């Protein structure tokens, strides 16, 4: 039996169009676009066309598009490399992805709380943006567009207005890795200076991504080297990856209106079915989250055990993030939202994408019903 794959927030299968677009650059069109022969110019043209395509979907100028090696690189480049000399402090909410949170902690930046729904607490953000008696200025603010665990959408317009008013010197970055399939990115880019994307979340390849850099935003590259991407990202272009990223992003953009409605129905069907099992809490209200991410907590169930039984039933889902050893770690996102540890222990994330269908939802519901009733039975072993 095939897998019921409801883990698109971890990664989505590549769109066939993106695979097809990529293949020639893994085979006959293998040149380095920096070269000075016609073969190189062919690769250069592919990168330039991909950049135009991405710029169009994002509503930015082609020169504002930097191709990266993925979301983590984009986040780190933004936080470590942007807004130099414009202050000292970096601010981010507590429910960010580790690629942002840990990068901010390296700068000894400030972490602000989130609300019970996972939204950045705007009052706390305002406090953090206010000038300090010490004269410290906020140089960068990073607020994710969509939370990767619970799916909460940030009101970036409100965040942007607050940052521009209270800390006009600050650079505003958003980790939009989970937004690409569900939110029109043209609406986000005018609100921020920097925006990070990861290609494999929208049907592109792993190890490829985009960072938009508003014209005039100072940026120091993370890696020293050949000065590609206008000195913003050294390293030979991943031509196939770049071309596939552009193709996948354009496809995701074109499909978005239809997909949002279709997937919202799948999510409702899933959440309604789960609610019927009893002892289930939806972590955030449905309208607060993107259609693609459903997050629930089961009473009296441990995520690790639930995931094993789902895996046995050929259902792919996830809980919190895993550490280097592969062990499940308690979710920092749920902790930041004030979800009690006992409830967070039964967390489950089910996430949808372009290949998700009703059959996946129904099989998943059956598997979860079986697993949860089994895990809620008392065990016999006692000492």
């Amino acid at each position, binding site marked *: 039996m095939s897998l019921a794959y409801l883990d698109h927030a971890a990664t989505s299968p590549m769109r066939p169009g993106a695979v097809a677009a990529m293949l020639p650059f893994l085979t006959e069109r293998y040149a380095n676009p920096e070269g000075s022969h016609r073969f190189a110019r062919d690769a250069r043209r592919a990168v330039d066309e991909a950049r135009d395509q991405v710029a169009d979907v994002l509503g930015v100028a082609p020169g504002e598009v930097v191709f990266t090696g993925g979301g983590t690189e984009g986040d780190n480049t933004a936080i470590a490399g942007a807004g130099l000399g414009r202050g000292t402090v970096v601010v981010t909410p507590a429910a960010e992805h580790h690629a942002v949170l840990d990068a901010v902690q390296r700068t000894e930046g400030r972490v602000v709380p989130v609300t019970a729904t996972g939204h950045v607490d705007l009052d706390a953000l305002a406090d953090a943006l206010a000038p300090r008696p010490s004269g410290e200025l906020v140089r960068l603010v990073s607020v994710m567009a969509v939370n990767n665990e619970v799916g909460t959408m940030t009101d970036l317009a409100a965040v942007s207005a607050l940052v521009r008013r209270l800390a006009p010197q600050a650079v505003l970055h958003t980790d939009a890795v989970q937004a690409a399939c569900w939110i029109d990115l043209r609406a986000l880019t005018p609100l921020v200076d920097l925006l990070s994307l990861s290609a494999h979340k929208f049907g592109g390849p792993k190890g490829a991504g985009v960072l938009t850099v508003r014209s005039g935003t100072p940026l120091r590259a993370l890696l020293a080297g050949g000065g590609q991407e206008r000195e913003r990202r050294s390293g030979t272009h991943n031509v196939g990856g770049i071309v596939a990223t552009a193709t996948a992003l354009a496809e995701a953009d074109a499909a978005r209106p239809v997909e949002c409605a279709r997937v919202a129905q799948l999510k409702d069907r899933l959440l309604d079915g789960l609610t019927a099992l009893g002892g289930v809490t939806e972590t955030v209200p449905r309208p607060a989250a993107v259609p693609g991410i459903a997050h629930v907590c089961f009473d009296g169930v441990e995520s690790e055990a639930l995931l094993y039984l789902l895996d046995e039933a050929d259902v792919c889902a996830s809980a919190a993030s895993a550490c280097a*050893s592969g062990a499940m770690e308690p979710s920092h996102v749920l902790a930041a939202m004030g979800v009690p540890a006992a409830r967070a222990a039964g967390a489950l994330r089910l996430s949808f994408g372009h290949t998700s269908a009703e059959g996946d939802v129904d099989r998943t519901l059956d598997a979860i019903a079986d697993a949860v009733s*089994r895990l809620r039975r008392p*065990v016999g072993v006692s*000492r």
Partner: protein
Amino acid sequence: MKVLLAMSGGVDSSVAGALLQRDGHHVVGVTLKLWGGDSDTGCCSVSDVDDARRVAQQLDIDHLVFNFGDDFRTHVVDPYVADHAAGVTPNPCVECNRHVKFDRLYRRAEQLGFDAVATGHHARVGRTSAGRYTLERGADAAKDQSYVVHMLSQTDLARTLFPVGSIDKAEVRRVAAELGLRTAAKPDSQDVCFITSTGGRETFLGDRIGFRPGRVLDTDGAEVGSVPAVELVTIGQRRGIGLPGGGPKRYVVDVDVPAATVVVGTDADLLDTTLDVGALTWTDTPLADGAAVRVQCSAHGATRPAVLRGHVVEWDTPERRVAPGQSVVFYDPTDTRVLGGATALR
């Protein structure tokens, strides 16, 4: 059977997987993440998880990681610190087996539909003609680990497999090498997994409790020296108690943490005729009062004959005092079968 195999990333549990497979079992490997702090070769370091996963891949069995860090902290690390602060020397490996490997993991295994749990311990589970389960020493006397799994009950033993318990260590390594397992030549783990060799027990405890300097007294109560941390002194210890060399050998015969005193005496002062124990467990029915047993008081120590009367071990001949907190394991008079265990009291 469907068997959940606890894989530490060492050679014993690697070979256990191969042997279970050879016997036709459906095996799933699991490595327990227990400790997030520093460790050298501890059971939860990332490189050990890598070894376990790679071996599982080589054997073509599924490999999982369970995070039991909360139970490990509650039942092993926190008591380890609290016991030392109270002058008790616990055995964290025994407590980990009691509360984590052979309790939480068993409950998880049952929930997930496994028929049995296997580990790489050198011990054997047997069966009497009456159908009772027995816990026997491992075939390799030098590697026997029945001491650290002594707390297993009939219910536990009924669903426990120790695949390498019936072969010796050389054979384990030979099988691993033959199968090309990457753990074939990996050294045995020696020490407590959450304590690093660089920092040692002193650093670990020093970060968590305030050491108290202690006075060293002789058996007549005269002060003969001092120690910087009374919590680090263990009964029977001879070195590191700040006494000048020469003269008769002197041993720690008592540690009183609340009073911050250490008493030293001769070998003879260390001898006791009885040992009080608590928290008794039995592999089968409790022993009759006055039963003759062989008693082992450390992981690889020799056994001594005694009679068990209630909560008191009556030595046949006077024996060295046992540090409170140590596991005291009762074997049958032939010294091959575990009958039960307990914890030494002050």
